[in-house]
């Protein structure tokens, strides 16, 4: 049970119900797909059936949003059981979730909420990662979330928390480069320093995504192309990690499959040896408000015969 044996899957796309028919019919030349675990775990309708078919033809990674590894509530073993059942069926290359909490006192906010980053939360998270890895019988891969506040109770930067966490538990990292950029802007830290200091050998996968700049803050909207500054950070992360499986997240205003795929393939332009020379200035801000951490998991799109 080690992250060292995990494959480099190449450039992948998020599996979205809007594209189900296209993927089944055209079998596009995509390296791999990432499925949001909760969209399929307790579903026995068409989405799970489609996932099974796609998993026969493409490598799949299961990406969750509800593990709540940082919650002070006990671990939800009903959730883990359902997750493990799906994993047995789909045989994902790995299972990932976020360094966050989603609720406490049995309530679920359906958001990826930030943790105070200190010794107490580090030990709490590490204990729970060990339990989850033992239960799932495979390493857990955790993603840095986009954050919109910092706690007074934090005593270490996030990159340091991640370094200790992976060191102590052997878990892997899903480095979301866009989230680094978003969190850095919102919480006044340097995204370049963050990318330079995370434990690069622990990074199993990267995420890219589009965000919305609202002037005084940035919202991780996943509804547009990747910002220039995020591509530059990706260039740096690619050099530091030596290149790992990379996925473009797109959850709002999802474009046609080919447009989505073309945006992902742009990543190839940032894998060269051209030195990282710094981040470009952000574009002009939009003032409208946006919803953070888009629900990439949703009420299913119904498939229905025409009515009577």
């Amino acid at each position: 049970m080690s992250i060292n044996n995990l494959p480099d899957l190449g450039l992948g796309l998020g599996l979205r119900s809007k594209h189900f028919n296209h993927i089944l019919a055209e079998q596009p030349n995509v390296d791999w797909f990432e499925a949001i675990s909760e969209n399929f775990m307790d579903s026995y309708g068409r989405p799970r059936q489609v996932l099974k078919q796609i998993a026969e033809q493409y490598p799949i990674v299961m990406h969750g949003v509800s593990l709540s590894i940082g919650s002070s509530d006990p671990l939800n073993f009903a959730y883990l059981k359902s997750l493990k059942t799906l994993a047995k069926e789909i045989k994902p290359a790995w299972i990932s979730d976020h360094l966050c909490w989603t609720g406490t006192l049995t309530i679920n906010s359906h958001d990826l909420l930030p943790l105070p980053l200190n010794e107490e939360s580090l030990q709490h998270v590490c204990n729970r990662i060990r339990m989850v890895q033992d239960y799932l019988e495979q390493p857990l891969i955790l993603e840095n979330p986009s954050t919109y506040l910092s706690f007074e109770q934090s005593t270490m930067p996030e990159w340091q928390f991640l370094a200790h966490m992976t060191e102590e538990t052997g878990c892997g990292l899903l480095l979301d480069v866009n989230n680094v950029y978003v969190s850095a802007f919102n919480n006044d830290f340097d995204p370049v320093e963050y990318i330079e200091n995370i434990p690069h050998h622990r990074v199993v996968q990267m995420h890219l995504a589009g965000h919305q700049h609202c002037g005084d803050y940035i919202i991780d909207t996943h509804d547009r192309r990747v910002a220039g500054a995020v591509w530059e950070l990706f260039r740096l992360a690619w050099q530091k990690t030596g290149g790992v499986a990379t996925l473009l997240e797109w959850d709002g205003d999802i474009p046609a499959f080919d447009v989505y795929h073309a945006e992902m393939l742009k990543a190839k332009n940032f894998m060269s040896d051209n030195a990282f020379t710094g981040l470009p200035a952000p574009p002009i801000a939009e003032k409208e408000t946006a919803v953070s951490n888009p629900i990439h998991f949703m009420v299913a799109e119904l498939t229905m015969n025409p009515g009577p």
Partner: protein
Amino acid sequence: MTPPKAHIPLARVQQWMQYLLLRQGNTLQDHQQHLVPDDNGLLLTDMVKDSKRLSAREHLAIYQRSYTARLRDCMSKQFSALEYALGEDLFRAFADEYLQCHPSTSYNLITLGEKFPAWLEANRPDKDEVVKEDWPDFMIELARFEYAIHIIFEEEAEEDFLPATGDAPEETLQLIPVFHVFAFSFPVRWYYQAFTNKLAPELPAPQESYCAVMRHQYKLSIYDLNRGQYLLLQHLLSGHTIRQAKAQLHNQNTADRSQLESVWPLWKKKWLEAGFFRSRPAGTPIH
């Protein structure tokens, strides 16, 4: 450099933050005073840092806005016909209040609206009036139907079967695994599908209606029924054979047996064509 603030245990930090996400409407004043009730007067500025551009209050507000918007959005996707029927503003007011009363306790969003129809029933605007209006009844029926449709779409059931054909002996016919019937006091099926087909339906007048919702090869189909058909199918759903179901229907109906026997061949033909049945191998018990 400012000295670090006193350590506050993780559980308390989380309860504090969650309280402010869930109880937004009730704590406007608490926010202004930076005070959080039930938490020994923790100050917002004890918990959240100001940044170069935003105050602690503004940082927290990003999460508060997103919490509400995200769950509202889920409710409107799960009850899209109801949202159209009520109008966006009224739907939103109901959904917000419902979410305050029943915050999600499941990792699975499909159950977010589970208690919404019952909540609408308990909180109908005319609940204290002696003479009730019609429209809340329609809204409650529509909410039940929309929720049921989503559950039926995802329900666990055998899908790997062939529908029965016309030459299957009648005693071997049984309903397919995903098959549900509904009775309404409004034309709910008509309204739902008119909305789904973007026909902008008007609020309907009361009128009894019945329908069946079935799933085969992961696709849902809806069929209109009359009252007799609804009752007969209900008997089949409770495990009776066609012969038993017809006898039951005969007993509860004023219709005489010959009348039922004369329409039955037509019903059977239409239902076989529609894929209501599969054929049970001879000798297998019905349960």
